[in-house]
């Protein structure tokens, strides 16, 4: 298609190497919500100032409930959406406002794995074609080389024998197998960075673990950095190196998994941890602590700290006025709360 040709990169920049594959500085993504022809518009502040770094070959989990902005954050970081403000650096290069047609190199180095196994891969294509597409688009290799790459990718995701799976259509595969195909597709271009947006939340519990293990193994084998977006703290604990907790468009706590989950310092993080049950028969005898109210509407956010209306330790005059900054309270472990120590 001539349109595809027209979008090929016109410049291939000099390879820069930074130890941080992704850096964001006060990244924002606001959406315009029109109220009609004469009433102006409001801003839906899905991402409202996120500062985050992701190192090479590390897995960072972003955990948040629905409406926290985590999905938007992921999409903005790989530039499926253009940031409204702040800065976004990939491997040291500023891609905050780069034009789409100049980002083909990014489309090779950064990939994504979608959430829904029933629509994450093209149901009309056989697995072989699904995996070959990215290679074709980026004009990688000849037919023979592509075939090899496809088989290798299938082996990497443990769909053996690869020749058996290559000719299948998605509807012939189980949910777990489809997600493996989606993962294989994300690997085929040898990326450095993969956005995994709730990759297992729609799979059966028993399949989830095997997929997450596979991702971990892939990360170690190929040295790929992962941004793992989820609402499930427990899986984040076992499969991420660092974790960031999002609330209403902002990171409220961030740091190494052991530190954050072992000692949550932000009141929201503490409440979140307290609200998730492990299988323990004693649970039925106690009332579990939880927060009152609901997460705020992203169009109409509270002033100052977005969490203050629900916070058990909020101080009026401070928390409702001043935006809290992320402060490093433990090694590598930052918290955005005026009162945490």
């Amino acid at each position, binding site marked *: 298609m001539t349109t595809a040709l027209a979008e090929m990169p016109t410049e291939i920049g000099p390879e820069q190497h930074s130890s941080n594959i992704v850096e964001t500085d006060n990244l924002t993504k606001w959406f315009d919500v029109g109220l009609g022809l004469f009433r102006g518009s409001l801003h839906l502040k899905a991402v409202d100032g996120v500062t985050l770094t992701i190192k090479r070959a590390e897995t960072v989990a972003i955990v948040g409930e629905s409406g926290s902005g985590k999905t938007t954050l992921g999409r903005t970081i790989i530039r499926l959406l253009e940031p409204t403000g702040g800065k976004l650096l990939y491997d040291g290069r500023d891609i905050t406002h780069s034009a789409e047609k100049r980002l083909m190199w990014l489309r090779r180095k950064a990939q994504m794995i979608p959430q829904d196994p029933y629509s994450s891969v093209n149901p009309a294509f056989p697995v072989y074609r699904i995996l070959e597409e990215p290679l074709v688009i980026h004009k990688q290799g000849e037919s023979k080389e592509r075939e090899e790459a496809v088989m290798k990718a299938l082996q990497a995701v443990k769909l053996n024998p690869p020749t058996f799976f290559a000719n299948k259509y998605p509807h012939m595969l189980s949910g777990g197998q489809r997600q493996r195909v989606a993962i294989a597709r994300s690997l085929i271009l040898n990326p450095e960075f993969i956005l995994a947006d709730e990759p297992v939340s729609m799979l059966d519990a028993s399949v989830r673990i095997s997929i997450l293990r596979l991702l971990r193994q892939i990360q170690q084998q190929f040295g790929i950095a992962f941004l793992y977006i989820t*609402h499930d703290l427990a899986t984040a604990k076992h499969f991420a190196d660092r974790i960031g907790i999002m609330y209403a468009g902002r990171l409220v706590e961030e740091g190494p998994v052991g530190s954050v989950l072992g000692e949550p310092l932000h009141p929201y993080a503490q409440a979140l941890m307290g609200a998730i*049950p492990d299988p*323990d*028969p004693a649970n*039925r005898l106690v009332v579990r602590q*939880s927060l009152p109210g609901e997460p705020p509407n992203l169009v109409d956010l509270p002033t100052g700290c977005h969490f203050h209306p629900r916070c058990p330790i909020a101080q009026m005059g401070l928390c409702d006025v001043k935006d809290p900054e992320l402060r490093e309270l433990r090694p590598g472990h930052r918290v955005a709360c005026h009162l945490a120590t």
Partner: protein
Amino acid sequence: MPTLDVKNLVLWYRTRKGPVHAVDSISFALEPGQTIALVGESGSGKTSTANAILRLLPKNVLRYDGEVEFDGQNVMELTDEEFRRNVRWRGISMVFQGAMNALNPAVRVGFQVAEPLMVHYDVDRDEAADQALDVLRKVGLPADIARRYPHELSGGMKQRVVIAMSLILKPKVVILDEPTSALDVMTQTNIINLLKDLKNTDRLSYIFITHDLGLASELADLVGIMYAGELIEVGPADGVFVRPKHPYTGKLLASVPRLRSEEAPDFIPGAPPDLTAPPPGCRFHLRCPVSFEKCGWSAEEFIAQMDLLQSSGEAKDKVPSIASMSAKSPTSLLIKPGANGSVSDFVQKLNAFVAATSEKNRFLKSIESVQGKTKSVEVKLYETTPPPIVGTEWRAACWLVTEGAA
């Protein structure tokens, strides 16, 4: 006397592919105020069990029998009309999966809650409205919510409305099918707290259906583990969660990623079986880490497992070379050795392979005898029957479980 006593409940469907054994002889009993959690993977038959108890049957039912004693009376003997009038919603009600999305968007919430009263009891509107407000208050919603429409409410509020609807006729048993699956963690906790509260104040019994063991432990006094339509373990929560008897329960518990411990979760290889053709013997044997000769390997399953070993990368070299295999009977198969091996050679190699790897490849344990014939080798497998259900209060269906085992 138990409020609900289910004995050998069976529900089979007729489908184009054959009969589906959705519920295959389930038994459990609930005392007043006791909660049982029915836990299992998707397709294990949990929702079908609920439908079977409430007699919400589709048109293609093949078999539906057993005994369901509610307050001492076997309600399976009632006609459909009697069941509808006296048992369904009045004695036993249900919160369906995704119910909060099935609220009628065009009708005010208060009216939807009051409707069962007006339909079942022929109560007049004002009286019904009062009772609806009562139950809405009980589930923690403010009185003015009755005038709102569903789309004006948050997820948590909608779920409380649905719970109110299930309580309006003051049932003794409420079946909850994944009541919190679409909700945020905080909202989930609030709903579970509400359910705990109601359980205590109203002496309600719950049948709590979920795939999440953590959630199950929040409410369950009894735990029932379902697999492929069967209740493979049922017993007190204190026992099942801590020292499960059935290998599947053990695997299931090990697969839960825990927030408060460092143990990495383990996964269960394979997938649940096709309910149109449940495996002979124990239904879990294909994926069981400790299956052995009694567990019911069939010749076809054996061949399939052998095939998998041959083609998967790791064991390829160690498996003795095979030209072809065919099942002679459900428990015997013929193997033609490949690559110029003599028959006796092959028999030797196979026995060595079995001795070396049968702990890892459990299906090999089902071999009873290996006999060399002229051109092929006959492998006989152990005959078997489904495992018995061992125990009284705490039962598990597994050959490894013996009476009184702790």
